[in-house]
């Protein structure tokens, strides 16, 4: 497996505050990679940087062999990076169908629109039932599904999810993670940042742990991560 995303030594600042320090990370083709970290560890910043919403002051990000750390989000979606931000990942005053349609705004995705639509309807049948409803009238779980589906419509090669389980009931979390694993099995590489450890550890191929902007555990297999004393203590409560 070749690596599709590589993050090398990036420093990222929010105004004057340094959020990420010398962070390294890579995602290989068809891999499901998890980044664990508590609140404020810099998880969201990491994903925002990869998706082009923020730019590193030092270091580089490469995607499919191309340097991307100076590109904008609208260029990156064309290269194949899909990103689902925490909450608010949709257009509240548009219908479910329109939200999905906007996922195919880029020409490349518009060609596969029908096929993609069938794919996300198969993953999340509830979106088909709710297709004419405004996005803001959906339940929290349905909104999260729609946000993921919207990103999938762009035909990403790498899908990034920022705390997809945020604010969802445990049963819904399970359902969502099943769908995420399914997306991964069908060939999309996934980078997921989470606080919800148990379910994500079980589906991830490799795990990183991010603390105060530093990677403190790098790319261990998930079994190894689960046995790591640090992860056990901080995230599994053992």
């Amino acid at each position: 497996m070749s690596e599709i995303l590589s993050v090398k030594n990036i420093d990222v600042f929010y105004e004057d505050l340094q959020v990420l320090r010398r962070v390294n990370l890579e995602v290989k083709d068809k891999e499901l990679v998890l980044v664990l970290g508590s609140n404020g560890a810099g998880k969201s910043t990491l994903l925002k940087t990869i998706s082009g919403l923020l730019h590193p002051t030092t270091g580089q990000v490469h995607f499919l062999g191309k340097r991307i750390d100076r590109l904008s989000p609208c260029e990156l979606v064309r290269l194949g990076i899909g990103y689902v931000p925490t909450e608010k990942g949709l257009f509240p005053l548009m219908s479910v169908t329109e939200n999905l349609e906007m996922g195919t705004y880029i020409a490349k995705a518009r060609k596969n629109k029908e096929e993609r639509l069938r794919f996300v309807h198969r993953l999340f049948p509830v979106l088909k039932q709710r297709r004419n409803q405004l996005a803001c009238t959906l339940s929290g779980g349905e909104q999260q599904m729609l946000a993921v589906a919207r990103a999938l419509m762009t035909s990403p090669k790498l899908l990034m999810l920022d705390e997809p389980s945020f604010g969802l009931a445990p049963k819904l979390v399970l359902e969502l993670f099943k769908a995420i694993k399914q997306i991964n099995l069908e060939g999309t590489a996934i980078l997921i940042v989470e606080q919800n450890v148990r379910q994500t550890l079980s589906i991830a191929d490799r795990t990183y742990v991010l603390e105060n902007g530093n990677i403190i555990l790098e790319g261990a297999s998930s079994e190894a991560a689960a046995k790591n004393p640090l992860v056990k203590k901080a995230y599994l409560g053992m």
Partner: protein
Amino acid sequence: MIVEILLDGIAFGLMLSLLGVGVTLIFGLGEILNLAHGEFAVICAILAWVLMGAGAGTVLSIVLSLVIVGLIGVVIERFLLFPVYRAKGETRILMGIFVTLGLSLAVHSYLVNTLPTAQFSVRLPVTNIVVGGVILRPSSLATAAISVSVLMLLAFFLKKTYVGKAIRTVAQNETVAQLCGVNPANFRTLIFAIGAVMAGLAGILYGLIATVTPSVGFDLTIYALIVAIVGGVRNVYGTILSGIILGIVHSVSSFFFGTYISLVIFLVAVILIILLRPEGILGEKG
């Protein structure tokens, strides 16, 4: 008699809607409250007056001036508002107010000083139409028909086309719009140009029922802002509705109480609506 007053009111109101919709869209996409909006109406009307004076036909002059005002809109958005968009939140709103207020003052003083005698008005070559004893003024009919067509076209554009939907995504969630591949800067420019052209058209239509002079820009800006805010400042349909309602209030009160008192009544109506629905007629709470 009441039918005639209502028709005049609706026509005037639709013209206000054309003005207000631009303010709503520009604010919705870029959080800039365009205090120079009325000046675009004036620029367009005065431009048409200049072209007509130079011997161009009325229709050609109007079409040309609409195109030119759109291009002016593009240039102003790209060069004058570009630094404003780099600011965020409250700073952006304040900067937008200062920059567009400055622009409005500059345009106003320039036009008033260089073309003090300019006055644009169009008299339609048609006499009053009488239907069942009701006198229908052709100027009001034309204003209403043109405004309704343009507003319907705009609604169709926003609702059904990919570009229109992209504009709505920028207004609703700019981050996710970018993640879909939409470049907000391009759509801000586009919507500013559309707003400028619609204001320009409102200026031309104003010339059917009144005389547009270089000094009316402030008044038109105030009308545009009021209509947009009463409508719920991010809601296009609310703005259209509030334009119509306020237009009717304006013409009914001017007929019964005269123009001076009618302005007072107009503003009282505005205050009442805002007191009853602070978020605007169709605006959302919170």
